[in-house]
């Protein structure tokens, strides 16, 4: 992914300078100071030192930038109050950039974590002193104020943020930055404490609270589960000056470490569905990545903040055209900074902008933000832009469809982090209108837009399968539409998408007994794999299994590719692999008939697994009769059933005592009796 900015910094600098010089505007630093003054005044600082503090603060534009442009200020007045307390305890910090940056980060994080000034000062002093004496990781030196906010905040479990715990971690878990991803395992994973009390109750750590000097040491010695362990790992990094953050995942707690500049490494993570416990704007991993990338370029971040201040200045003066123009320059110049997009929305809203301005923002989102992050661009579109640009009325669904589809076309990968594409697609579908036909058509369009890359197609299919439910007619229409869409994409390599389609559709079609869909998609996908070379002698009659459906228990398990199931019952050959006891492979015959024999070609290895399995037949797929038990098997099995006079609509192979069957062919021969 390319994060380079356009226009260049130089061009932007010239623009900004000319804006200030030619129009006799307040300079960027003056606007910065004005904003800073507003929040300093809002804090209503008291005492004789307040004036000296203000003087020191306003003497340093860098400090003002650090405070105002290092991510959101949740409570500016409290932040300033904390900063004042920090400065009172260490007035020289204003002259020491590194300590000043850390103090500012502590002040910024104080309100969010509900730390009082005493605690804010303690945390700042810890980092200042540890660095002074060399006890923090060398990474600490070059962290931005934004990155320092993670250190300032601490982890989710408060016990790890105490002075004693931080000291313990600093001494006992001092590691190279990347090794903190394994620091969670310093504590043992164990659900019950030695007395048998569960970690999910209040008694797990209770007996040990006075055994060691810190909560961190208690957890190290007693253990815990994902929450304690992840907090331990992240807290160890923080206490050594390496940013870390804990995060929730479905039924789990994980963490992430800034292992090197700009690179956050998830640790003990089991899912992409992460909610960070220290987050800015929003809590997902994608938002975390966006903020990290945006703030990594400190110069660009400050410049775009200068532009926002200029835009706000124009807006306050009633020059909405300039306000909009400059807000646009900001977002195009530094699209990674969410604040620029939010500012654009605010300016357009406040200035009661025309639809064309919103359309321009829409286009900018698609061009500049969507390639970076589908998640964040959709959030912006859905919350702020669609309400302004989507035409209303039942008869305008076609127009809405085009606008909504433009987002699908603008997104080609996961960008900064995987997100809930399916959920967002579902929201788009709802915006199309109430007609399910129109909604289905939009999903077909979305499928077509993503077919060649085949990244989002499983989500699209999953959503549509859920929407269609048992409505076979609707499913059939959808499949026909998908086929038409794919056939239009001449020259594109569609093997991956047909494979994806088959993986999802074939097992469901087999389950429903939907021969038409199974055969259509199965044939389409068969082009993606070679026919099987072994063709044993057949039995009298026709291949009854051909044209039917085929299914197994647990399709799509780690050894099974359902896109090849069609071939198993056809001359072509395919493969499957069951993974549940009793292992079951079921053919719904293409033609009901008198069975003459069954031919099986198993996989080359582990042929013996077929021993003990049985062939069962059924007329209705519910009542089964055993007609053969396998023993002394080889790769090719020919079972002559002509003497048994079996009429069947279904044939299955079932192994009652083991989970694995794996064939290339399961052919049923006989005389058609439809």
């Amino acid at each position: 992914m390319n994060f380079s900015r356009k226009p260049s910094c130089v061009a932007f600098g010239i623009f900004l300078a000319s804006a200030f010089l030619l129009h006799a505007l307040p300079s960027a630093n003056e606007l910065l100071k004005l904003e800073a003054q507003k929040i300093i005044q809002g804090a209503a600082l008291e005492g004789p030192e307040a004036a000296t503090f203000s003087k020191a603060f306003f003497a340093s534009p860098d400090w003002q930038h650090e405070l105002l442009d290092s991510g959101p200020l949740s409570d500016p007045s409290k932040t300033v109050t904390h900063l004042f307390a920090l400065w009172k305890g260490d007035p020289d910090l204003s002259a020491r950039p590194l300590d000043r940056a850390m103090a500012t980060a502590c002040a910024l994080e104080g309100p969010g974590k509900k730390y009082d000034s005493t605690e804010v000062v303690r945390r700042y002093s810890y980092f200042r002193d540890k660095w002074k004496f060399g006890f923090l990781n060398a990474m600490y030196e070059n962290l931005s104020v934004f990155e320092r906010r993670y250190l300032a905040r601490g982890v989710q479990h408060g016990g790890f943020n105490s002075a004693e715990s931080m000291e313990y971690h600093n001494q006992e878990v001092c590691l190279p930055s990347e090794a903190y991803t394994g620091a969670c395992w310093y504590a043992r994973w164990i659900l019950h404490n030695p007395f048998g009390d569960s970690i999910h109750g209040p008694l797990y750590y209770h007996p040990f609270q006075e055994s060691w000097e810190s909560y961190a040491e208690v957890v190290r010695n007693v253990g815990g589960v994902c929450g304690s362990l992840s907090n331990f790992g992240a807290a160890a990094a923080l206490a050594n000056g390496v940013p870390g953050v804990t995060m929730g995942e479905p039924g789990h707690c994980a963490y992430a470490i800034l292992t090197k500049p700009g690179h956050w490494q998830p640790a003990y993570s089991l899912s992409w569905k992460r909610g960070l416990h220290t987050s800015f704007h929003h809590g997902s991993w994608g938002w975390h990545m966006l903020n990290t990338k945006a703030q990594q370029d400190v110069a660009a971040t400050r410049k775009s903040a200068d532009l926002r201040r200029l835009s706000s200045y124009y807006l306050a003066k009633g020059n909405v055209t300039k306000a909009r123009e400059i807000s646009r320059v900001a977002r195009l110049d530094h699209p990674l900074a969410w604040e620029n997009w939010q500012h654009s929305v605010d300016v357009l809203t406040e200035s009661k902008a025309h639809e064309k301005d919103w359309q321009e923002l829409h286009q900018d989102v698609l061009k500049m933000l969507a390639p970076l992050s589908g998640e964040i661009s959709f959030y912006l579109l859905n919350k702020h832009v669609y309400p302004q640009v989507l035409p209303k009325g039942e008869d305008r669904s076609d127009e809405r469809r085009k606008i909504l589809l433009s987002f699908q076309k603008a997104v080609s990968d996961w960008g900064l982090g995987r997100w809930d594409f399916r959920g967002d697609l579902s929201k788009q579908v709802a915006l199309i209108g109430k007609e399910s036909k129109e909604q289905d058509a939009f999903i077909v369009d979305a499928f077509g837009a993503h077919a060649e890359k085949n990244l989002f197609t499983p989500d699209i299919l999953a959503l549509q399968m859920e929407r269609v439910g048992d409505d076979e007619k609707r499913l059939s229409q959808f499949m026909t539409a998908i086929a038409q869409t794919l056939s239009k994409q001449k020259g594109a390599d569609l093997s991956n998408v047909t494979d994806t389609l088959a993986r999802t559709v074939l097992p469901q079609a087999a389950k429903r007994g939907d021969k038409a869909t199974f055969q259509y998609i199965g044939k389409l996908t068969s082009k993606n794999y070679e026919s099987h070379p072994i063709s044993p002698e057949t039995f009298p009659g026709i291949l009854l299994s051909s044209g039917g459906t085929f299914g197994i228990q647990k399709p799509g398990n780690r050894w099974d590719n359902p896109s090849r199931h069609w071939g198993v019952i056809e001359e072509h050959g395919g493969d499957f692999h069951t993974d549940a006891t009793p292992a079951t492979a079921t053919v719904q015959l293409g033609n009901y008939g008198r069975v003459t024999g069954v031919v099986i070609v198993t996989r080359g290895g582990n042929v013996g697994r077929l021993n003990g399995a049985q062939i069962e037949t059924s007329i209705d797929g519910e009542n089964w009769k055993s007609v053969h038990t396998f023993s002394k098997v080889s790769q090719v099995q020919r079972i002559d059933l002509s003497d048994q006079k079996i009429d069947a609509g279904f044939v299955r192979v079932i192994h009652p005592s083991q989970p694995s069957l794996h064939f290339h062919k399961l052919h049923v021969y006989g005389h058609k009796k439809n």
Partner: protein
Amino acid sequence: MATRRTNGLILAALVVPFVLNAAPKTGEDFTGASALAEKEKCPFVIYVHGSSWHPASRIFREKIWESAAFRESLPDEVILTEIHLGQQLSEEEAKAQVEKLKGWKRGTVRTFPAIQIFGNDGHLLKTIQGREMRELVSASLVTAEIREVLGHAALRRDFLAAIVKAREEKKREGELEALSRLIELPLDDEPKIIEQLKAVDPDDSTGWQARLGFGNWEFMRRVSGLIKEGKLVEAVTEADRLLSVSRHSSEQRALILGAKAHALVAQDQLSEAWILFQEARETDPDGPNGKAIWRYGLRVAGMPLREILPADSVLTGKEIGANISRDHARYSLSSEQHGNPEDYLTLMKGRHAKGGFAFHTAAEKDANIVIDLQDACEVRALRITNRSSQVARAESLTLWTSSDGTTWEKGWASESAQPAWDVLLKSPVTARYLKLGLDRKTPEHLHLKAVDVYGKRPK
């Protein structure tokens, strides 16, 4: 405090008293040092650090480890080397590092920096790291620490030689004696030491096998498992068996006592368990095991027996006398509704009632209980524990005292509903009867979980 000491690291490193010696030899890396140590039959010492990413490690290396003062103060029959672990390495750099560190076990160091001292046979004798390492703020302290380990290393060589000789001569007693002396050294465990002991002392007459093989908190887990399975007798028997071994350390013994007490609590033998919990505390008063067992014992035996006040009680540490209600008092109710007679006694003795209250009156005006202390006592304090739920109903709880059960004098009144009240009377009151009731104009239920009266009974 360790931090203050470490803050003086740089200054202290510059002013180092030292003893002149020939400088020790240095090995190029771990493999080189270990080979040289084997050849020269002398121990080797490694400084394991991340100087490129940890400034304090760099300072230690420059000011202490590489200083002439440090090197010259070491005996010359020791080999020095260092291991540097990098940070944010490229793939090639990481591969090169792995190659360079071959033979060294990364898992033996949990935090950086560290000093590791190995015997000439490559056995890791000691790792100095974490808090211990931070306290080594001068060359002389580092030297002293290393010298102490080297002294033990010399003894270890002697004991190992004695073991070999005793084995050759098939002198079991001599071998066992030498093994015992070896174990007592404050060095890292010898490989397969229990197997060696077993071979020479199958009945574990020394108790060393029991001590070295003791699973510490795993033993408590095992006892908890037995309790869960209902094997209570087996749990006690197992603890008794271990208690019969005198070799266990005090930390281990506290744990075994605690485990037995844990099993007794499961059998509802709280008084017996309480004695063991106290013994565990006396056995290991300052260790983490003793402290944990004590805290656990307080919760599961001390407090249910009304032997001890919760740590957060304001009465803790005050001159309140003994519990004078637990073993003597009786009480009566103004009325009864919804209560369980089996729970009545839990008001002043034994575990709290599971239902959350010991008694329950009807909703009435002046709902109360009258406690008869069975004698005129000097009442100093009360701990009254409210019902777990419906806490607000006891908002107007009031205490009256009486000598005859007829004439009452108000002694205390609640200011608000609380989960529990610690009542310290302004001055001791002599009374036989205590009335606890609701002082309000409208009818209400009275239900309490526990009442403990403190003071002095007449002789």
